Structures are given as C-alpha cells and as structure tokens.
C-alpha cells in the first residue's frame, strides 16, 4: 500500500505542477499600454469620469441623478455592453446614485459614445459642463 501512497504523492505533485504551469500560461503579465492609458476597463471608466466627479462636488448636487446614454432606457436593459457601461459609470460616481430609467430629477449625467447622441438630451435640460469624451453634466431648467 505504501507504493500506492507514493505514486499518489508523486502524481499530486506532478499534476499540481502541470495545473500551475497552465495557470501561468493563461495568466500572462498584465497588458502594457504604450500611451500610459489604463488597460483595464474599470480603470478607464474611472479616468473618464474623474472630472465629472469633481464637477458634481463643485455643484450642489444631491440625491439621485438621471443617466442618459446612447440607447433609450428600454433598450439599455437588453444591451449587455450598455448595461456594463452604466454599471461602470455608477461605480465611478459613487456615492451619487444613477437612475437610467427616469430623468425627472434636477440633475442628470450623460455618457455618450457616438456622435449625434446629443439629440437624446431631454427637453428642459441644458449642459452645465461638457467634460469631453461624451461626458456631460446636465441640469433641468433654462441655461
């Protein structure tokens, strides 16, 4: 029986080595971005919305904010990429709560990726700050 235990020990050591080697192969060093841009999508969204966060702190913004994107709210729920973008924006803008389904509050955030999406800005809202890259801070009422 000692032989069985020895073979088992050798196999376990060998299999652990093979499995770890495969883990190394499947986990390469992290991407190296030549222009210093974050390679991780969460970090990229953080950087994209950093100025908006500062703008929200500058303005007396409280409560839930509307969230506007290239897709209307009913299509956003069925679009995995759009939903992930919404979740990432929420992660970047904590503690403000973003509501993609309605924009009846005084403030809203626009996250526009495609040209021409500005037409989605609802009537009655105006751009308080255009922070670039399709990121806008909107407020209800006359400019």
């Amino acid at each position, binding site marked *: *029986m*000692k032989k*069985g*235990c*020895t*073979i*088992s*020990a050798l*196999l*376990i*050591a060998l*299999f*652990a*080595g*093979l*499995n*770890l*080697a*495969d*883990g*190394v*192969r*499947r*986990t*390469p*060093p*992290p*991407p*190296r*971005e*030549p*222009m210093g841009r974050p*390679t*991780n999508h*969460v*970090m990229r969204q953080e950087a994209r919305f950093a100025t908006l966060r500062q703008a929200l702190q500058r303005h007396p913004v409280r409560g*839930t904010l509307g969230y506007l994107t290239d897709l209307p709210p009913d299509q956003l729920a069925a679009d995995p990429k759009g939903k992930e973008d919404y*979740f*990432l924006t*929420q*992660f970047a803008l*904590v*503690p403000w*709560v*973003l*509501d*993609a*389904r309605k924009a009846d509050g005084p403030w809203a955030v626009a996250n526009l990726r495609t040209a021409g999406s500005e037409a989605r800005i609802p009537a009655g809202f105006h751009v308080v700050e255009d922070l670039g890259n399709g990121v806008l801070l909107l407020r209800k009422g006359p400019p």
Partner: protein
Amino acid sequence: MVFGALFSAWVLGCLIVAHLWTRAVRSDLPLVLPLGLIVGLGVSSALFFLASLVFARPALVGGALEFTLAATAMWRRTLRRPEAPPPPIPWNHRMTWAQWALATVFVQAVVVAAVVAWRAYLTEPYGGWDGWAIWNMHARFMLRAGPAWPDLLAAPPLNWTHPDYPRLVPASVARLWSWAGIETPAAAGLVSIAFAAALVALLVAIVARQRGRTPALLGGLLLLGTPFFVTFSSNEHADIPLAAGMLAAAVLVILAGENTANRGLWLLAGLVTALTSWTKNEGLLFTVVLAALVCGREWRTGGSRHAGFFLVGLAFGLLPVGVFKLLLAPVNDLMAAPLGPRLAQLADSARHKLILASLWRDLGRFGEWRVLPYLAMALPYFSWQIRRPLVGPERTIPALIALMLAGFYGVYLLSPQDLTWHLDSSLVRLLLQLWPLALLGWSLTVPSGDPVEAGGPHWRWKLPVLVVANILTAAVLVVALTGQLAANEFAAKRSGTARLAVTLGEGWFGIERLGDARWAWSSGDATLFVQATGEGRGFPAKLQFELRSLAPRQITIRAGGTVLWSGAVPVGATPVELSIRKFSDGAMRLEFSTDAPGVREGPGDDARALAFALYEVRLR
C-alpha cells in the same frame, strides 16, 4: 498605511484567538496565525461597519474599538493560569528526504501561485465583475457616503448591485481605504489575497497538526494546483474569504472537540461560524448547517455545555449580521419573488436534471484544471481498509459538505432566476467554496506510508540531488515567468537590458491564441505599437508578420505620416517585413488603413465584421 491597517487587524485577531485558545499558543502558532488573520479581518470589519452607521469618519472610532478589544484580550490573557500543552503530536519526528522534496515543491508552488495571483490583480485591479460591481461598490458607498450609506445603497436603481449582501469584504476594504486616506485598489486586492493566504496556511497547519507533514503538504499542493483558486485569490470576490471562514470554523470545531476543557475554542468556533454569515449569504446556510451538526453531536455525546459555548460565540458573532439584515438591508432578490410558483418548481423534473447535469459538469471543471486531480487523490484508497477513519468531530466534515450541497440544490430548485444562467454564473464558485473543506476531509483520511527516519547514508547523495533539482527548477521558473509575453503583446525581443515589444493599439478585436500561435483581427483601420524599454533599446530591428483578409483589399501602413508598406492583400497570407529604426519617445505608432469594410465572419447576430488580421508576428 494599507499594510498597517491589515497588520493591525491581524494582531487584533491573533490576540482574540490567543485569548480564547485554551492551550499553549506558542506550539500552536501555525494555527493561531492564519486563524488570527481571518478573525481579525472579520472582527475589525464588524467594528468598522457599526462605526460607519454613526460617524462620517469611522476609522477613528473603529480603531479605538479595535484597540480597546485588543488591550482587553491581552490583559485577560495575562490573568490566565498556565496553559496545558497541546496534545502530543505522534508524527513529530525529523523530516525525511521525501518530505523535504515535497516541501520544496510546495514552496515553489507557493511562489508561482503568488506570481499568478499578482498578475491577476494587476490585470484587474478592482477585481472581476462581482469584485467591482458588488463588493468594491459597497465599500465605496460605506466610505464615501458617510452614515447615509445604507439608505443610498438601498435605493431601487441599485438593486442590481445586491445591496443585501453581507458586509465583511466591503467593510474590510473600506476600513483599509479609510485608514490609508486613499482609495487604492491595492487595498481590495490585499484583503482578497490575505484570506487566500490564510486559507492555504490553515489547511496545511491543521493537517500537519492532526496527520503529519506529508498529507499536509499534499493537501496544500492540491489547493495550489487548483488554477481557479489561484487566479481567483486576488479577484476581490467574497467566495475565497467565505471558504477561509468555513475552513476556519471546521478546524476550530475539530480542535475544540479534542478534549473537554475547551470552552474558549467552542466560543471561538461559534464566533468564526457567524463570520461566514457576515461574509456571504451562503454563509447563512453554512451557519445553520454547522450549528445543527455541532449541537446535535454534542447533545448526543453529553457535551451540551460545549454546544452552549458554541451558541454563545455564534450569537455574539451574529450581532452585526442581525443589525444589517434585519434593520438595513433590502430583501434578497431570491426571497423577494412569490413563494407559490417557486414551490411548484420542486416537482419540475427538468430542473432536477439540469441541476444534476450542471453539478456533474462543474465538478470536473470548477478548478480550471488541465489535469484532474481526482484519480491521484483516489489512488491511496484502493485498499479501503487502511484508510484513516475520521474521529470525533472530524466526522462533521463530510456531513457538512453533503448538507451544503443539498442546501445549494434546494436554492437552485427554488430560484426565481433563469436556472441555466443561475447555475452557469454561480455553481463553480460554490464548489470552490467547499473545495478546501473537501481537501481537509481527504487529507485527514488519506493513508500515508510509514515515516522513515531522516539521516543515514542515503542522505549523502540525496541532499545534493535535491539542492541541484531545486536550483534547476527555480532557474526554469524564472526564465519562463520573465520571458512570457504580456496579455496585449504580440512579440518581444531582448537585447541586453533593452526590450522591444509589439502591442495592440486601437481597432483590434484582441489577441486570439491557439497553442503558441497568436493572431488578431481588426475591425477596420487599426494601430500597432512598437515599445522600447531599457538601455540600448535593441535597434535596429525587423518586424515581420503575415497579413490575412477574408476578402481582397488594399492595406497601407504608416508611421508618423510616412508610408512604410502598402500593397494588395488577397485572401490568404501576405508576408510583410518592416524596418524599425530608433525612435525617441519610447513607442512607435504604426497606423494600418484599409480601403474596404470588414466581412462578417458568420451568419449570427454576434458575428464580427473582420477587416484584416496579423499572424506570425516576430521581432528580429
């Protein structure tokens, strides 16, 4: 400061464990240290959570509470009578050469696993989907919103982030951020890795204590040889912390049951069991199951006082869970759906079949193994009679695993979610949670050969062989790890300290791999970078690759407005060679443009429109 905050939680945990440890701590240090880390992170997170409900800067109040608790534990420990030594360790002889060999393999596995975990962290600093969308999101609310965080997090638009999930991980991360004064993702990664490290150390320590070094090292190797565990260890989910808590609770129940004078260990076992409920909702199931098993066993064997101490520890540990679940958290999404239709699902045979089929499938793949370890694990049991039977409270382990699996089965049966999606998105993680417990059970029962005394004439040649083998293995590991291409690199060339690398820019679908082959398809115009680092920079160099396309097209490659190559690319491979001369700013941008749109790769809605591809990229 992030490390300081983690260290202080560890010290607090060690003092609490040492205070409740009813035998000499020094000889049990390999057990006390990992247990201290798990308990410390759990207790400090609970104190931070309670302080965060009242104070905008909870670090100060939480820290004061931690200090008070640590001082009390230390003071009370000094009042204790001299401790009894722990039960003697029957296997405590000198290590054999085979054990030395196994130990060196284990150490190398630890180093490689640490490199893999570090890389996984660097690739996703805020963790995978659940890491940022749930656990780190909750941590941010706890830190940034002040005492209003429970109301904000319970807002209906945030239902998707599961605001009812327990708070151990978010509070631990928020505590580290708060102490450090900066929201570095390293804090979240550190908490995640700390639990994984404590888990490995605890598994090895308890098996070494109960069975000896060989089963302990084999158990540790099986865990480190589970790629999903290693890559997930820094992924900032709560599954590894939960697995660590469950293992710690089982270990404490085993130790507490060793003799009759273990009041403190029973209290600690109850406390740690409750911490699993503070980590994840599955921990609530674990708490109920373990409490039932402990109470049933102790009452049956006349140890109802022990069960009482266990329940006191449990009640104490469940305080923050109760405050959170009963007063602050919204209803869980699985519980919110009407019960009637869900009860009807119990009789749906298709659901039973789907759950069992998924369980069978995921038992073989949850570890993401290249080689399944099950056969090697089963080999020693071919002679069933010589297995080591589980004794005393060790018998709790198989019952615990079986009842947890039964509980998961019931939850899936009653789930209001789409069952296929629910199983595909969670079952592998549930199995990973139970894997350390299964390894503990295996390590405690596996027959091991008789130990051979160390020393003797054989050591004369075995020692140099062992040393040389280790040096060679370490050299191979260093070369393999340092020579590996980064995730977005196509090719690299080293010359002295200089390194040239080709990386993808914009306009690509990402690098695809099959074996050693790498290629990338573009969606249209795209950019490629040649990066240079180090002294000398390795110039001049030749960049060689093949261009392929699904339809004939013209492709032009420019650098800084100068055309480097232009030509017709038919269907098939077109070899290209570019001269890379020295550039000044660290990276050379190659712009690829094409005159024709992409061709859809297939008929489905998800089919990509592919323009051209790079294959066989080399730097010479």
